[in-house]
């Protein structure tokens, strides 16, 4: 029995087309196929929402910087009976406050409170905008028992590298 396994390990620019490739990598992975259906679906959903979060908050550095501390990355790992989704991407420092607020908020709430927040946000977010975010983080928090861990590492005057880790009990 393997205690630790990597299901997905990707680093590079993420476009909409990349998502399909990454989802196929996940679906084809033996560890993924061994999971029970409910956990599989949860991991799948968390994976999709994590990538969506990169789309919503991802920033691009102008110029030709190829420093790996600035490239988006996404890793799915199994350790013992837990699964981790770790995503990292560059964000604008101006967005940190909003992201931090939303992450701290979901981490503080229990399931029932998350449900109320979900209802508030889904009704408030106008259908006219896709960039509301928030709902994705709430959805992820509802599907996990642990807090969403996160960090921001300064890159330059305007950007930081944002990482978050979502833990799922298998």
């Amino acid at each position, binding site marked *: 029995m393997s205690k630790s396994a990597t299901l997905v390990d990707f680093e590079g620019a993420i476009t*909409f087309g990349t*998502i*399909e490739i990454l989802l196929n990598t996940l679906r084809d992975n033996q560890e993924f196929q061994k999971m*029970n*259906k*409910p956990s599989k*679906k*949860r991991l*799948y*959903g968390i994976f*999709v*929402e994590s990538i*969506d979060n990169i789309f919503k908050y991802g920033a691009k550095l102008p110029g030709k910087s190829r420093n790996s501390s600035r490239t988006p990355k996404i890793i799915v790992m199994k350790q013992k009976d837990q699964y981790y989704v770790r995503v990292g991407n560059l964000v604008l420092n101006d967005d940190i406050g909003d992201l931090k607020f939303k992450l701290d908020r979901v981490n503080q709430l229990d399931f029932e409170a998350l*449900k109320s927040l*979900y*209802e508030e946000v*889904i*009704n408030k*977010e106008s*259908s*006219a*905008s*896709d960039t*509301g975010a928030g*709902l*994705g983080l*709430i*959805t992820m928090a509802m*599907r996990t028992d642990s807090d969403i861990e996160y960090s921001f590492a300064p890159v330059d005057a305007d950007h930081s590298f944002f990482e978050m880790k979502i833990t799922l009990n298998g």
Partner: protein
Amino acid sequence: MEKLTIEPTLNSPGVVLDPVEKLFEFSGESRPENVRNFYIPILEWLEQFAAGDTGPCTFKFNLEYFNSTSAKYILDIFKILHSIQESGTDVGVKWHYEEDDEDMYEVGLEMSRMSGIKFDYVKEEI
């Protein structure tokens, strides 16, 4: 009213809205690249449908997965269906979920509660 059909893709659901055949169905996955562009024509179709004399109808939702951005629009669909029901027309919603997919069942309960329209839950055996 013209029917609206959309073929499913890897990331967008199949949609059949056919008032003549009385077939109304959403199935598959929903995480299209531009969620708004995908759902706005559907919502507009339903608004127009709701404005006419629809007669009793049943909508089938057989979704395997939808992302949180899609959830907003799916809730909007149920709000329109609820408005049809409010005007005195019998509107049914059949919410299909795989037998071990408790999350999808619970999402159905929440969608039903938030929109005010009653769902029938259909457990799909695998």
